[in-house]
Every structure is written in C-alpha cells, then in structure tokens.
C-alpha cells in the first residue's frame, strides 16, 4: 500500500491543486487584528480593521497607534477648493475651544481621498499652509485603504473625471479606543456640539 | 389759550383712544386667524410619553382627550407583501404595517413625535417616509432612508394641525407610491375636533398592472401605464371590494359620522361622493377650517386629503364613489356605508306609486287604438255596456278615475256630469276629436287638454253608452253606431 501511495503522491498533489486554489485562504489585508492588537479592543472600535497610512511628515502610521487619544477625523483632499478648507477650519476652531488640560490628549486627523495627487510633499506643504500644529496628522494611503476608512466612517465619495471628488462633509469623533462617538454631518458644523463631544470623550478616556 | 390747549388735549386723547382701539381690533383679528405658537404650552420638564397604538383602516385611533402635549413614540414597519388586489388577482404591495393604506396616525398639535421606521428584513428595497405634517427636509425622508433589516429614528414636532398624507419617498418615488406606500397622519388642533358618533378612514389610490383589469394571477407593476396615468384599478383601501358587502362601513340612523378621506394617487384626483348623502361639513383639502357646508362631491387631490361629516337621517346602503364614474363601476372605486335603523318617510318615502305613464303635452295627442274590437257591429245592450266598461277602464279611468269622479282642478268628473249629459253629439265629438279649452262642469271650471281617443265606432258607442248610464248619469237612450258615424262624418267635413 505504501509503495502505491508513494507512487501516487505527486499525482495526488497535482490533482488536489484545483481544490486548494478554489478555497480562498488567509489574506494580509482587511482582517481583524493580528497578535499585535490587544484583545481588549472593543468590538465597535474602528481600529479592528487595520491599515497603514503615511503622514505628512513621511512616517508610517497605523491608526491603532492613536489608541489612548481622542481623534477628530475628517476626509478631504488638498486640491479641493470648496468645503474642504472649511472642514479644516471647523476642526481648528474646535481645537482652540478645548479646555487647555485636554488639548494634549486630542489628535486632529485629515485623511486624503486623493493618493494620486496628494504626495507626502504636497501634504506637508498643505499642513504648513493651514498652520497645523503637532497635534495634527495629514495622511495618505492607497485607494483601497481610503475606501475602507470612508466606509467605516460612513463617508460617501466618488471621483470625477477631472480628478476631483464629491464627498460627505462629515467630521467624526473617535474615543480613546477608536469607537465612533459623534459625527457632525454638515458644514457649517454645530461647533458647540463637536466641542462637547470631544470634551466628553477626552474626559472618559483620561479615566 | 386754554380752549386751544384743551382742544389739543382732546384731539390727542381722541387720537390715543383711536390708536388703542385700532390696535386692539387688529390684534383681535390677528388672534382669530393666527395659530399662535404650537409649542408654547410645552412644559419645561419632561413630557409624558405614550406609544401610539396602530390600527388598520377603516378603523381610526380614538380621539385625543388630553389637553397637554406629550411625546408620542410611533413604530411603523415597512414590509413587502403579496396579497389580493381583486378576485383572482394578486399584487406584491409595498406597505406600511402590512396594509394598504398604512394606518392612520393620530397626534395632537404641539406633540413631540419620536418616529421609528423599521424595514422588515425580507424587503428587497430600502424605504423611507415623507410625512406631509413634518416641517423639515423631505418631510422626514432625508432622515429615514432605511435598508432592509434595519431601523431609522428621527424626531419632529407636530406643528400644524390638519389631516396629512404620508408616503415613501425612496427613488424611484413613483413606484414606491404606486405599490401602496401611503397613509394619513391626523394632527388634531389643540382644542380637538368637534365630537361625532363615528369616524372612518377611507383612502383612494390606483394600481397599474401589466394585465388588464380582472386578469388573474400575480400582476407586476407596469411603469408605462403609470407614466401615461392609465390605471387598471382605482380602489378604496387597497383592493377591489375592500369596503363592500360584509366589509361595508357600518353606522346607525341618527349618528353623526366623520370620514377622514385620503388620496395617495399616484396620479388621479378624486371626486369624492357618497350617493344619497350630503356632506354637512367639509374641511377642504384636510385643513383646519370646516370651510364648506352642504357639499355633494368634494375634490381630494393626489397626495392630499379631505375631512367630511354628515348626519345619517335614514337607513340604507349608501354607495361611496369617485364620481369620475367609470372608475367606480369599471375599475373598483366603489365602497359602501351600511346604515341601520328606523325609517323616516318624511325625509325619504321610498317608492310610493307605480302607474302607467301616458305622456301629455301642449297639443292634442292621439292614443293608439285597441285593435281587439275593430270589427264594426251593433252590440246588444248587455254586451255594449260590458264592452263600454272595459274601454272606459283602459282609456278613460286614468284621468277621469274609476268612479268617474275626475281630479279637482285637473280632470272634470263624468259622474252626474251636467256638461256630459247636456249634449250627446258633443260628447261623441269630444271622444273622437279631443277637447281643448275652458269648460264648466258641475259648477267648477276646468281648462285642460283631452286627447282624441282613437277608438272604433263600436267602442265609442260602447264607452259613451256606459258612461251616460253610470256614475249617477241617467241616460235613457244608448249611443248607436249611426250616432257615432254621423258625428265622425261631420267632423271630417269640418276639417
């Protein structure tokens, strides 16, 4: 029997190949956290779905690394001349309105829809132009990761033939665990409500 | 000086008084017509919370008795349901709460409404809701788009009182409405509606099916017919016969009945009418004013409503129709209000009389002859008088009455008639040629028209012999064939 099996083994492997191909196996992207992620992350945390972003300072950022800080997050692109600058201004105003003891715990993040045109250099220039301080991150990533973040946030967008984007004006507030706590859907935003939401999330994270 | 200043003072005083009067008068006018702020009586603390009980048409939730605002929670499910449109005909309806129309929602002006739209997981389509009572983007539609198996919530203040349509507004809107997604929301004014004995909910709409009216089986929606506004079905409450027979609306004589009438379209305007009744009051287009009275037929716009009420005075089955009448009889826009109770003959007697109708008019007409006795012969007395009685009953009694008494002011009597008995030839002539003009019979004046009666000579002789020897007339001689022929010839010679 064993000699038969030995002779048939190569044939068996060859024949099993289609079956192996037909069954999709583990992939790298879009899977819940690997061993690096702590098991205590809440089920509703956006950080459960991993992605790698590059900041305007050229650093690789995993959003999970923002754990512990409250994150005020919006999606925009540097070539946008309509509401994107207004979105940034709303976020700057919220930053200014925060109680001083909380400012060190809150991050402000802009994620770009437009990896094709928003290179690291472009993002850095943009951050300088808008006078964004050290609490700010302007991020880029490949299109698939941009889509995933937008879907997580409920942000709608589509690209136009000229390279511009139609998109939602949503500003989101994530708590220290990456759970979505509040969203402002429109511009002009309800600034007091945003400040209240960020303050509440920051105070509960501190505890 | 003093007089002048007094005059000035008086003038100023008068001016002030006048201004006050005008201001008061104006504000009085304003307060009569303006609604005021419907949220003014909201308490500073929390309001009582109630959950709306949902009932199916034609039933209506009971009138609101509280005099203060409340928070009302409404849970409305959207569900796609396959069921009967007409006998043998099925349709996949898209519904609120599984019924067409959706339930009538009832709140009070000033209430806070927490609305939950729940889309059943078996739905293929997302749904939302536009309530015409809502002041806000899309009437709520912008905030309630709900995927199958999910639920959306939004809150609104019921500001304006009135009767409003609600419907789904998901793209393609025409199809969502055409498939049955509509209903009514009643926002009662703060003082409530006037009390009635019974309230009903009647909702008209159309259905556009690929098959013709009555074609059996599951019928799909036909978009071309919808665009051309050519429905196969126009119905009340979602199906043919929904308010007919055992499903008729029921009420009692003496009751004041109110109908909340809606029209979901999607295309047609309704000419709403209840056969045999008149609407005592109509809130045209569902507004807060009972602005018209004594209305036979009221228009209900597509996506609109009307409130009608009527006092039921007599029993019977009153047919509810869209008076664009082919819709009622050929497409299904027909319902019934069955009213029980005692009759009232003064208001409606029912059929009183069923008699032969012989047309008369401004000129002398002829009555067609009885052909049975066309053979001319002299009859013996017994037969003559018997025949005369028959001819009298068939030709004369209608006007002169069976006992020859006539009708006062209309037809002269033949009974003991001085005019009749005075001249035999004249009597024969009247039967042959008719009579036009004033006559005095037994002291009374008559000015009518008697038609010439086309009888054979035998029958003329018979009927006159009979009349002249009956009803108190005491002729000793009979009328003979020759008498009749002589008068006939003389009449012919004259003309």
């Amino acid at each position: 029997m064993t000699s038969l099996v030995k002779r048939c083994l190569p044939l068996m492997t060859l024949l099993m190949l289609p079956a192996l191909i037909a069954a999709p196996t583990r992939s790298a992207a879009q899977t819940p956290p690997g061993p690096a992620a702590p098991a205590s992350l809440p089920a509703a945390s956006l950080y459960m779905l991993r992605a790698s972003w590059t900041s305007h300072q050229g650093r690789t950022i995993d959003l999970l690394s923002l754990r512990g800080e409250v994150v005020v997050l919006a999606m925009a692109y540097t070539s946008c001349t309509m509401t994107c600058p207004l979105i940034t201004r709303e976020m700057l105003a919220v930053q200014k309105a925060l109680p001083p003891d909380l400012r060190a715990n809150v991050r402000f993040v802009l994620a770009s829809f437009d990896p094709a045109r928003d290179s690291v250099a472009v993002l850095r220039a943009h951050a300088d132009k808008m006078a964004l301080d050290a609490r700010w991150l302007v991020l880029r990533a490949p299109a698939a990761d941009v889509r995933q973040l937008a879907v997580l946030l409920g942000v709608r967008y589509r690209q136009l033939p000229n390279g511009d984007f139609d998109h939602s004006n949503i500003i989101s507030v994530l708590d220290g665990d990456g759970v979505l706590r509040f969203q402002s859907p429109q511009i002009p935003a309800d600034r007091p409500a945003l400040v209240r939401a960020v303050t509440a999330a920051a105070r509960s994270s501190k505890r | 000086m003093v007089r002048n200043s007094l005059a000035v003072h008086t003038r100023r005083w008068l001016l002030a008084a006048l201004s006050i009067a005008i201001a008061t008068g104006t504000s009085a006018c304003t307060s009569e017509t303006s609604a005021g702020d419907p949220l003014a009586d909201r308490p500073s603390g929390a309001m009582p919370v109630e959950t709306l009980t949902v009932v199916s048409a034609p039933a209506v939730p009971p009138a609101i008795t509280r005099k203060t605002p409340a928070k009302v929670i409404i849970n409305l499910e959207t569900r796609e349901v396959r069921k009967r449109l007409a006998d043998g005909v099925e349709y996949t309806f898209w519904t609120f709460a599984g019924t067409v129309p959706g339930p009538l929602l009832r709140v009070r002006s000033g209430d806070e409404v927490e609305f939950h739209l729940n889309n059943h997981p078996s739905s293929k389509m997302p749904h939302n809701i536009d309530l015409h009572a809502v002041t806000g983007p899309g009437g709520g539609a912008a905030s309630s788009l709900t995927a199958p198996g999910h639920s959306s919530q939004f809150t609104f203040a019921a500001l304006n009182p009135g009767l409003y349509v609600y419907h789904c507004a998901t793209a393609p809107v025409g199809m969502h409405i055409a498939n049955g997604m509509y209903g009514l929301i009643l926002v009662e004014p703060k003082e409530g509606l006037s009390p009635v004995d019974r309230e009903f909910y009647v909702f008209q709409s159309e259905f556009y099916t690929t098959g013709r009216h009555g074609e059996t089986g599951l019928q799909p929606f036909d978009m071309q017919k919808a665009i051309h506004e050519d429905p196969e079905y126009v119905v009340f409450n979602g199906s043919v016969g929904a308010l007919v027979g055992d499903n008729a609306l029921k009420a009692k004589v003496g009751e004041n009945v109110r109908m909340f009438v809606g029209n979901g379209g999607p295309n047609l305007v309704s000419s709403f009418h209840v056969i045999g009744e008149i609407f005592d009051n109509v809130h045209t287009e569902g507004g807060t004013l009972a602005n018209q009275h004594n209305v036979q037929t009221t228009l209900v716009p597509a996506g609109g409503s009307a409130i009608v009420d009527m006092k039921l005075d007599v029993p019977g089955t009153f047919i509810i129709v869209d008076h664009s009448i082919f819709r009622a009889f050929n497409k299904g826009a027909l319902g019934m209000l069955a009213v029980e109770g005692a009759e009232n003959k003064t208001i409606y007697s029912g059929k009183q009389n069923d008699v032969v109708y012989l047309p008369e008019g401004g000129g002398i007409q002829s009555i067609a002859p009885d052909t049975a006795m066309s053979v001319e012969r002299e009859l013996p007395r017994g037969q003559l008088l018997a025949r005369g009685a028959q001819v009298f009953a068939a030709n004369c009694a209608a006007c002169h009455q069976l006992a020859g008494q006539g009708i006062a002011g209309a037809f002269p009597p033949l009974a003991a008639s001085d005019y009749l008995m005075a001249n035999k030839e004249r009597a024969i002539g009247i039967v042959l040629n008719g009579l036009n003009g004033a006559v005095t019979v037994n002291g009374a004046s008559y000015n009518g028209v008697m038609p010439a009666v086309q009888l054979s000579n035998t029958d003329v002789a018979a009927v006159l012999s009979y009349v002249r020897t009956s009803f108190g007339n005491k002729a000793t001689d009979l009328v003979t064939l020759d008498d009749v022929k002589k008068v006939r010839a003389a009449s012919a010679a004259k003309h």
Partner: protein
Amino acid sequence: MPRTNTPRAILLLAALLGAMASVVRAQRATGALYQHIAAGRYRPIFAAGVSDSGVAVRTFLLATLPVTNADYLRFVTANPEWKRSKVARVAADSSYLRHWSGDETLGPTAPPTAPVVNVSWFAASAYARAAGGRLPSTAEWELAASRFRRTFANADVLSARVLAWNGGATPRTQPAVGLGIVSDDGVGDLHGLVWEWVDDFNAVVTSGESRGDSGPDAGLFCAGGAALSADPSNYASFMRYALRGSLRGSYSLSTLGFRVARDIDAATTKRRPR
C-alpha cells in the same frame, strides 16, 4: 504486490477519483470561473460631472456566478476570524450569516449552491481579496449587467423583467446559482437572484431625500455641480442606486450577495493566492 493491501489502495484511489470528480464537476457546472467583460462606457444614473458619454470602463474579468454558501464556507473555515461568532461587530452587523445553522454549518436554509447572503461589504471584500481579486466597481457591474441583447429585445424589456423580479416576494431559501438569465458575455444571475455588493457602493452622494436629488445638498456634500438623472424611466437602475445609498459597510441583508472581479493583468500572471 501484497494481496491484503490492494483493497485499501483501491479505496484510496476511489476517494481520490471522487475528489477529482467533484472539483471538475464544480468547475463544469459554472463553466469558466470568470468571463471577459470588454471595455465600454457606463452612463451613471446620476450623471454629475461626467461627460455625456459616461464613465470609461476597462476590460476586466467578472465571476460567472455569485459566491455561493459553499464557497463562503470554505473561506470561513480557512479564515476563522470571519466566523459568525468571532467577527468584529464593526466589520459585520448582527445579521451576519444569520441564515446559517452555525459558525461552520450551513443547515437547511443555506443550500450549498445558493448565493451567499447576509454578508457585509467588509466580509465580501475580504473574500474577494483572498480569492485573488476584488469587488467590481459600480461602473463595471452596471456595464456587465446592461449587456443582454441576445436575451432581451431592448433595455426596456430588461428593465421590465427586473421590475417583475422586484415585485416578487423574497424566497425564504434562495435557489441555486446558475439557473437564471445569462448575459451576452456569459455571466449568469446578474438580475433576478440577489442584489450584489460593489466596491464603491458609497459613491452614492445623495441624502435619501430623493426628490431633491437634482443636486447634492451643499451642506452635507462637497460636490462639483448638479446631479441630473440620466434616465428617469430606468427604474431598475434607480432601485439599485437607492439600495446602495441606504447601505453601510457593516450591513448584512438577506437579499444582498456578491461576486468577484479581477483585473486582466492579475489573471494572466497566474498568481497563487496566499
């Protein structure tokens, strides 16, 4: 050869042949796994900012049939973080795989050959990636779904057929894939079976107040211009548009499945998926 070992050898060979046959059978039932969809233009239902002739779509490969319960079971077995009891709630809501009997048991309401439903966008995307592909874009899917000249006289007839399907009740248990209409390109079940996820389902830049959709709400959206409906009588497209606009990535619907697309380049390199 020792006589006592021959029966066992024969058994082994039989099992092997059986396995081979089932794999071959599966492939034959579906024909080729992917079909060529030639390049074309797709006119979106809301033609904002696109040229009159629409969006250009490059040649790509589209799966012949939607992913089945059996396909998805193999994926879950190999990727246990996508099991019903384990999946992160942010990636799939509580309706995820609710028609299955268990984490790795299909049960009577999930026939192996029926299209898998109750899967979220994240789950569908993960499956597609594991299979060496991706979800099709809206433009790709709609382009492929418009090619039915061999079956239907014109677009109106196709639209009427789609409307009729929408008018029917959702079956408790989905029928098998491969029994429905086939497009000119040989793709089956694009209409009449289940709705299908697309990669950019969230490209629907509208508010849900569809009567105002002649232009995106300027407060809610940063948008280039008016969004005019290209074909107001194309109800079937409107329905898909409305459905996509109501979805979030974590939603699992009993009428929503998916199929895999691939770029032409990826296929020709014959990469073995990791």
